[in-house]
């Protein structure tokens, strides 16, 4: 229309329209989808997390209010069996047991302090060790448990928590388990009848060297008690040693010293020890019957922990803990350690550490199992094991 000058003042430089290459679209769309998926997954994870926290809170709540028969199923049935039939030759039955029929003080005292030594139940001889539940169950739980057992196999009735509290106070300083059926019958209810006599083993004289290392350390090194506690009860991530098998402790000290069990804290301490000192320390801690100080503190799901410990998880190829560590986690000397009443921080940490060896040590059992446990399961099982009564002290552990 108008005539153009040689230079168009109004001229705007422009890029000719070029099509955006297809790969750019591809990447953009893929990224957008990815982002949407991630956002969606995050929101679900958030919801799952909230649900899991709620479940954990419920599990804790449930633990406080568990019925007596549920407590029995989780705490007692591994030995006495769900139907109270016991194990022929090893664990006395509860069905048709005079100890269950007897004065309620009997069952409460046995639960509080445990029992060790010969006992005759329903005409059969037993000579074993029942753990003390006094340090892991409160009066209320013990009352519910004792009530359930007496209602199922005994005269029935209800045991009041105040009755348990009174019995606990009455024998607060006892510190050792009841010595077989004879002491129970004599002290609590003669109606139980004749029981075999208890012959205590001649206790070995105290190993002063081991005692000194445990309390004062060796040549300026750390004493065991500085971390593991005065009674070997452990704390936080430091394991409980009391009631562990002597052979196992000695073996682990050797493994720390030669590096086959890598541990920067234990290595310098263990390297100082001679073979006889390792053995002495093992026997010292194996003989300590300290109450449990372990408490569930990792917010693990106790029901899941109990499931793993008692039954395992066949869908994930996890055998139960107790299938190797013994029916109550008391260990099977010398191959498998006691895991009952272990400090949960230690158990979970040790499982995580073992999982790291799964690739480098094919065929090793615990690394393979630990690698199949996720963090939630490790916390669950560690917290459950912490609620178990400590392994009874016995000379038989290292008999083989």
């Amino acid at each position: 229309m108008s005539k153009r000058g040689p230079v168009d003042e109004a001229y705007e430089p422009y890029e000719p329209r070029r099509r955006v290459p297809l790969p750019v679209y591809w990447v953009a769309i893929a990224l957008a989808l990815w982002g949407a998926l991630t956002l969606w997954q995050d929101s679900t994870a958030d919801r799952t997390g909230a649900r899991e926290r709620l479940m954990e809170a419920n599990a804790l709540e449930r633990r406080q209010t568990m019925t007596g028969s549920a407590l029995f199923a989780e705490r007692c049935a591994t030995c006495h069996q769900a139907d109270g039939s016991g194990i022929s030759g090893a664990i006395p039955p509860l069905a048709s047991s005079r100890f269950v029929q007897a004065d309620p003080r009997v069952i409460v005292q046995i639960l509080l302090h445990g029992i060790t030594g010969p006992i005759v139940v329903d005409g059969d001889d037993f000579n074993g060790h029942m753990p003390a539940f006094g340090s892991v169950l409160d009066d209320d739980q013990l009352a519910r448990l004792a009530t359930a057992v007496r209602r199922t196999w005994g005269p029935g009735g209800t045991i009041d928590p105040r009755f348990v509290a009174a019995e606990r106070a009455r024998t607060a300083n006892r510190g050792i388990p009841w010595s077989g059926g004879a002491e129970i019958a004599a002290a609590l209810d003669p109606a139980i009848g004749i029981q075999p006599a208890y012959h205590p083993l001649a206790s070995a004289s105290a190993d002063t060297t081991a005692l000194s290392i445990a309390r004062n350390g060796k040549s300026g090194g750390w004493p065991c008690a500085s971390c593991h506690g005065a009674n070997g009860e452990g704390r936080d991530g430091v394991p409980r040693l009391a009631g562990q098998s002597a052979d196992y402790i000695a073996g682990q000290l050797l493994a720390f010293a030669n590096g086959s069990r890598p541990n920067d804290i234990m290595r310098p301490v263990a390297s100082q020890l001679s073979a006889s000192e390792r053995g002495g320390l093992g026997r010292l801690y194996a003989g300590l019957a300290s109450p449990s100080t372990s408490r569930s503190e990792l917010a693990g799901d106790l029901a899941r922990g109990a499931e793993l410990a008692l039954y395992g998880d066949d869908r994930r190829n996890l055998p139960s803990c107790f299938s190797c560590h013994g029916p109550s986690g008391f260990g099977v000397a010398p191959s498998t350690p006691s895991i009952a009443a272990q400090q949960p921080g230690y158990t979970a940490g040790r499982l995580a550490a073992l999982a790291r060896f799964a690739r480098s040590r094919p065929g090793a059992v615990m690394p393979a199992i630990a690698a199949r446990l996720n963090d939630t399961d490790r916390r669950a099982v560690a917290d459950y094991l912490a609620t178990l009564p400590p392994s009874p002290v016995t000379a038989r552990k290292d008999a083989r």
Partner: protein
Amino acid sequence: MNDRNEDPAIREPAHDKVRGRNTRTGIYAITGGLLLFLFAIMVRDEFAFRGRENSPPAANVPLSFTPPPMSKIPDGPEGASIRHGMAIFENTGTEAKPFVGNQLACRSCHLDAGRKADSAPMWAAWVSYPQYRAKNKKMNTMEDRLNGCFSYSMNAQGSPSGGPPPKGDPIYADLEAYFHWLASNAPTGTKLKGAGFLKLKLPQAGYDRDRGRAVYAQHCASCHGDDGQGRTDINGRQVFPPLWGPRSYNWGAGMAQLNNAAGFIKANMPLGAGNTLTDQQAWDAAAWIDSQERPKDPRQKGTVAENVVAFHSGEKTFYGKTVDGHLLGSGTEAPVQASRR
């Protein structure tokens, strides 16, 4: 109008042509984007989809099966029978005391209370009976089969009653109730994945008990003991079962045959680390374990040599062979009855 038409860069093509091109570009872009996204997901999941492509089950491909969780055992009298069956399975020496002549329980070989695949799980056994068995040359009901378990694996000849539970004993009914429940919703008439023991081909080098002794020392002895007698806990309760000697299964048991033992070992041992031994190691360990003396075959009437012909021909077994100057199959002395189980 003219000048615009002169510039090809801003010349507008026909309207529908533009739309056609944009649509095509859009389709390419979205398709490509989706493909790239799916590819990325597959890479992330390490081709997790691959397995699903073959999922339509062919007729003769074994089906996998998962038994119901224990919490689903029903209440009432049926549940009571199932629970008692499970108690017998787990605690055989107490619940079926008159008929058990060793320190084993059903669970010793049928792991996880008879649930674990490749350790002769009971859900798979339940759906494969009645069955003809060459072992006794007749059609076997589950009760017949269980009678065999008690006779051989549980060594009933050494039990207080001297034999397996009599026909019709409630022990059979309760065990069967438990198996039946384990097999809830299991398909019948088809092969189930994990049934029986793993069929393990004999490697080129065969089996060798001396190699087996070394495998045993390294991988088995820490739980089952150098002497193969297993271990007991502080109460004398057997935790790790004895593998030979008077307190183990007798010469008539399936586990005394090397192919069964090797398959069991390969898939399940060491407990919790199954399938870590090589086939060769599994066969050799089986050879070491099954070339030790154990209670005699209860079917034996004449000499061991006669019994080989009668019942052990064609088996992969050390029965009737002489090892270190000892004729295997001669049997063991009955253990002292004060034994603990």
